[in-house]
């Protein structure tokens, strides 16, 4: 049927005289055209993929340059913003100072630009504490970016939801609490652990641990402990809360080993 077919070609007349064999012959022709069509399909797909990559790469390189410029500009702006006086004179300075005039047309009406600015504020705030962090938070709210953070939490993509929750946590957006509550036991564990972290941050305690309906793994415990350390939650009654969450011996052992440095667990939990 395949590559020896020509051997039989001398017998074409006999084939035509026999109905079954004619069918076979037609099947062979059909098979040949099928192979060719599939091959052309692969060739076309390969060409389209190449074209797509080239166009995408060109576009990315172009956008990368403009995005990088935009990010640098926002970084300049934000570092000036937190170092300059927090009053009306700020605008005056930016207008009069040659070095800062380029920051003036801070057009963030475009969604993409707002996204970049929100990310820059987020990254910058992670490195700050005290009044400067507060200043950045106020600026974030002033631009209404908390609405975009809440929209992200409402979105369907789990990465967007997590990103939104990271904003809620960093800027302590209390309006997000209602949205978060239903996510604490989400089947996607990344969403769930981020919801727990945001709850700890916004509640300023770890009562959310009592609501968790499953075992947590080391990755999740790490996240929680990191958050507790970051928030410096010291005056919280961990005992009852953790005992409510940790009901089996294995988890108690993990908690004993891992949480001890942070929670002084041994003094709180008795076996």
């Amino acid at each position: 049927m395949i590559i020896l077919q020509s051997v039989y070609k001398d017998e074409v007349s006999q084939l035509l005289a026999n109905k079954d064999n004619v069918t076979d012959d037609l099947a062979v022709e059909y098979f040949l055209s099928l192979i060719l069509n599939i091959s052309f399909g692969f060739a076309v797909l390969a060409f389209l993929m190449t074209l797509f990559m080239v166009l995408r790469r060109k576009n990315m390189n172009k956008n990368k340059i403009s995005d990088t410029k935009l990010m640098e500009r926002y970084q300049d702006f934000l570092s000036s913003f937190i170092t300059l006086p927090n009053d009306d004179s700020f605008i005056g300075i930016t207008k009069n100072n040659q070095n800062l005039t380029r920051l003036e047309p801070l057009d963030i009406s475009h969604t993409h630009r707002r996204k970049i600015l929100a990310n820059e504020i987020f990254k910058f705030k992670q490195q700050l504490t005290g009044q400067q962090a507060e200043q950045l938070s106020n600026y974030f709210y002033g631009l209404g970016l908390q609405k975009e953070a809440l929209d992200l939490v409402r979105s369907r993509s789990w990465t967007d939801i997590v990103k939104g929750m990271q904003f809620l946590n960093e800027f302590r957006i209390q309006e997000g609490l209602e949205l978060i509550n239903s996510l604490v036991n989400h089947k996607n564990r990344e969403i769930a652990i981020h919801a727990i972290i945001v709850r700890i941050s916004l509640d300023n305690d770890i009562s959310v641990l009592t609501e968790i309906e499953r075992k947590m793994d080391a990755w999740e415990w790490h996240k929680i402990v990191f958050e507790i350390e970051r928030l410096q939650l010291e005056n919280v009654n961990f005992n009852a809360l953790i005992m409510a969450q940790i009901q089996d011996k294995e988890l108690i052992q993990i908690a004993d080993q891992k949480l001890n440095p942070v929670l002084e667990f041994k003094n709180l939990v008795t076996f």
Partner: protein
Amino acid sequence: MINTILNIIVQFFEYGVFFYCMFILSSYLVISLISTVSVKNYTRRRSILDHATLVSSPYQPSISIIAPAYNESVTIVDNIRSLLSLHYTNMTIIIVNDGSKDETLQMAIDNYDLYLTDQEYDMQIDTKDVRGIYKSRKKAFSKLIVVDKHNGGKADAINVGINVTETEYFACIDVDCIIDQDAFLRLVEPIMKGGEKKVGAVGGIVWLTNDADIKSGKVMKLRAPKSYIGKIQVVEYFRAFLLGRPAWAAKNGMLLISGAFGVFDRETVLKVGGYNHNTVGEDMELIMRMHAYYRLNDMPYEIAYIPDPLCWTEAPSDYDVLGRQRNRWTRGTIECLKFHKSMFMNKKFGILGYISYPYWLVAEWFAPYAEAGGLLFFFIIAVLGLANWPFFFALLFLVYTFAIFISIYSILIQELTYHKYESVSDILSLVATAMLEPILYHPKTVKWSIKGNIDHFTGNNKGWGEMTRKGFKKDGE
């Protein structure tokens, strides 16, 4: 009688090779699709998860990085410095000097202020004798241990490292690789998420750096290698690490974690007896033995893989060296498949027995036989004037277009995920390489594989073969 036998042979080649070919093509398609989903999920997660918080976490599993060194006096100081700068707190670095004949040990002693300790260790795996264990007097290098031993090969050197360390996990790396500074923060994620499942080993992508810009032990900018041999290996690595392994790992059927870079559960490796000296495919053999151990003991486990470029290495830059490497890979594959033949179609091994092992057997070991046999058969019938040329060209066209489709698809996946190559000319150059591969390069791989088979069965060329590399470009070069 002779006619019957000839007829059977003809039928076998005519239909057997055809169906074999169709099986391979459809397997590649399925594997590529599963891998695409897996890689996409991973890269989405990667974009939002902050692994940096792990740096100071009390949850970090302890890891030893074991790097065997043999005659590395020129690079040992820089390589140790590079390892010391990795972002991981709960880590020990164990350099095993495998009886180097040059100044490897002395260079390490002089530059890191090492002294001979009287540290004892439990020799749980038999190895060649250890001459001494060195540690640094300087606090800055307190994580560093240098073990000096008699020469015994890579597997023996790693086994010594496993004996000496007491950490939960160990990483096995080639000392001349560049490791991403956050590599271990990322590799431990599957371990920490394992829960009740034992995570036996975790692998990552090994990426090629030929002609890349490297500064202070970091890959600054990648570009497609200038040479065809370099470019073709880049495409091969894309196919293997982006379109192959993610699928096997997603189904917990991965038989190989690259010897250049992987993290392993020390307890399990000790239980299965460490690395096997009697094969040149010791990395694959260890993973197969770990699978067997977990399966036969009914333990929930995972051999994980993260499709993240965490380790950078240089590909062979001439065909002789590459040929020796591929010869060794072939022999390693055959040895591992023979060692673990009890896995074949054995229900105790689940996906390994029914899919992974048969796939490796048919698509890896038997592939050069099928290709070479098919070509020989066709040559004979062409000479005899029996060939159906339209079908021949149609099938040739199908195989060619499929081959370039899969290669270009792997380049596309790279572009959509890590987009490491910034210029359009790099992409086009890789695409052109993929288009030429079936004609210029693939016949060589078949030849090397057949040579590997012959060497295996005749007992020739038992060792690793000499690997020579140009070396990474230093700063400013």
